[in-house]
């Protein structure tokens, strides 16, 4: 209760996204009046927080998700974009998307541009302040690793793009296993934007590391090995006493291929339109192998280690010329 002498009052320090009722009584020497009718107001929500580590993008789109900072649900969200140019009025909002019901949106963008994207929450009380913006580059494809899928023995290093495995003793071990994680194959899935067209990324490997890298459907069996089933496609490197051996696995089958220079940086091109998944030695622009497959669903990049070692993932790279192999 607030005592005021004027016929107006400003009330501060209210909680965001909350409904309040206000009423007024008049007071004189004889006592208090009955209360007025109640006025109901809803305060505007707090600005959401964009999950910067979960942004996924490609040349033509971005998938942004965020979380609400209020306990109660809001009515909807609004996303605002500004395309960054080198001119002075660079930060003008160029597009708004309104009426977003969930905490996620797929936005269509133009290639090789930079955008600032921010989100506002909306309720009856109005719109929140703009969230902290995120910067998105539509150069190449950018994805993050899905930690929930990581085998317990697989560690993701601080940069978020290097995976490591120290020891292989007992892969079906006693460490906690989450529903979504790989249990036998020491692997992890990336979260690729579900968008058609072409996607390219590179993986830096070490000469003495055995690995499997490629793509897999979201529902690829977590107790399986990458490439051993029909929901995953991968390049596998094995070291035998006499040589480096390479397999290109899908449904457990591989062609018989010899590669004379062990690649240290492998380029992977996923082409939904032409139904191809291609692997390149990115250092010398050498094409290694192409799977021809009509992907029935969107896929995610997948990575697994079979000996102790590390894999470094590089993305947000424009497609090199050597991938113009049609």
């Amino acid at each position, binding site marked *: 209760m607030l005592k005021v002498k004027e016929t107006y009052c400003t009330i501060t320090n209210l909680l965001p996204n909350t409904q309040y009722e206000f009423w007024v009584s008049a007071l004189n020497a004889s006592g208090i009046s009955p209360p007025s009718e109640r006025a109901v107001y809803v305060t505007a929500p707090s600005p959401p927080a964009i999950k910067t580590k979960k942004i996924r993008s490609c040349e033509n789109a971005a998938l942004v998700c965020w979380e609400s900072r209020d306990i109660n649900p809001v009515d909807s969200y609004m996303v605002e974009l500004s395309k960054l140019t080198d001119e002075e009025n660079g930060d003008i909002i160029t597009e708004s998307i309104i009426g977003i019901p969930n905490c996620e949106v797929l936005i269509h963008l133009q290639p090789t541009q930079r955008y600032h994207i921010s989100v506002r929450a909306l309720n009856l009380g109005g719109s929140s302040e703009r969230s902290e913006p995120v910067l998105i580059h539509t150069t190449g494809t950018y994805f993050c690793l899905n930690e929930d899928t990581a085998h317990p023995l697989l560690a993701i290093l601080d940069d978020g793009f290097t995976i490591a495995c120290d020891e292989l003793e007992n892969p079906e071990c006693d460490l906690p296993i989450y529903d979504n994680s790989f249990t036998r194959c020491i692997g992890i899935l990336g979260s690729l934007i579900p968008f058609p067209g072409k996607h390219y990324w590179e993986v830096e490997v070490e000469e003495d590391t055995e690995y499997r890298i490629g793509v897999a459907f979201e529902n690829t069996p977590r107790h399986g090995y990458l490439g051993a089933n029909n929901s995953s496609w991968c390049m596998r490197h094995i070291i035998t006493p006499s*040589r480096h051996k390479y397999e290109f696995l899908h449904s457990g089958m591989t*062609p*018989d*291929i*010899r*590669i*004379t*220079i062990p690649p240290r940086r492998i380029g992977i091109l996923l082409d939904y339109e032409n139904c191809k998944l291609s692997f390149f*030695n990115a250092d*010398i*622009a*050498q*094409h*290694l*192998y192409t799977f021809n497959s009509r992907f029935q669903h969107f896929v995610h990049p997948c990575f697994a280690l079979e000996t102790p070692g590390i894999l470094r993932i590089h993305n947000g790279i424009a497609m090199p*010329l*050597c991938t*113009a*192999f*049609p």
Partner: protein
Amino acid sequence: MALKQVSSNKCFEGFQKVFEHDSTELKCKMKFGIYLPPKAETGKCPVLYWLSGLTCTEQNFITKAGFHQAAAEHGLIVVAPDTSPRGCNIEGEDESWDFGTGAGFYVDATEDPWKTNYRMYSYIKDELPKLINANFPTDPERMSVFGHSMGGHGALIFALKNPGKYKSVSAFAPICNPIQCQWGKKAFGGYLGSDTSKWEAYDATQLVKSCPDSHLDFLIDQGKDDQFLSAGQLLPDNFIAACTERKIPVVFRLQQGYDHSYFFIATFINDHIKHHAKYLNA
């Protein structure tokens, strides 16, 4: 250098032609096939040389390989020469199918009675490209080579002996190490004499070991059911081992169920054309 057109057939909107000319290297009349893609009508095109194998003429590749659609799509001129001089009336030239006529082995012979006419190395390296560039809308800076079996051996040695001349190279079931196989020993013995040190200059595996300066990206297809592979005539493992040692990039594909025939070539020719197009059209 007068060219006489022998035949012309429209194919995928381009033309498959055969020409005949008097060769100064081989001292006889020689034929070659040339496919001119639709793009050649309006501009200069890169040239891809195909070298055929034992017993072939300029006809086999142009009628059986099924390369025209891919060549048209990528705008490549494809030249398919014959595999040896013809009609020279050299004694013994028709005695075997793997020596003499149809078996030039892409060398410059030093022994009699072959040394006057059997100069396929110089013919393919110098005379033929000069003739092609003078008479057709070619881009002389953009040239690549590929071939089958003996022609695969030819493609490998031309690429290795002439760094920078060819933008790309590939082969189907090539004879990779002729000094170690029966075919090679017979041919080199006959054309180059008994001093085996003179044979090494025409052996792809040896060339890799001794002058490994190749930045070329080799694509090789080999049928797993190829009778000549199991007979030890092709020896790709030796070439692969040498390239691994010398860090020369090779992708070697062993194709399940395929033999030595043009059916095998026709199956994978598109991959090879695309491989060359990537470098020739860059």
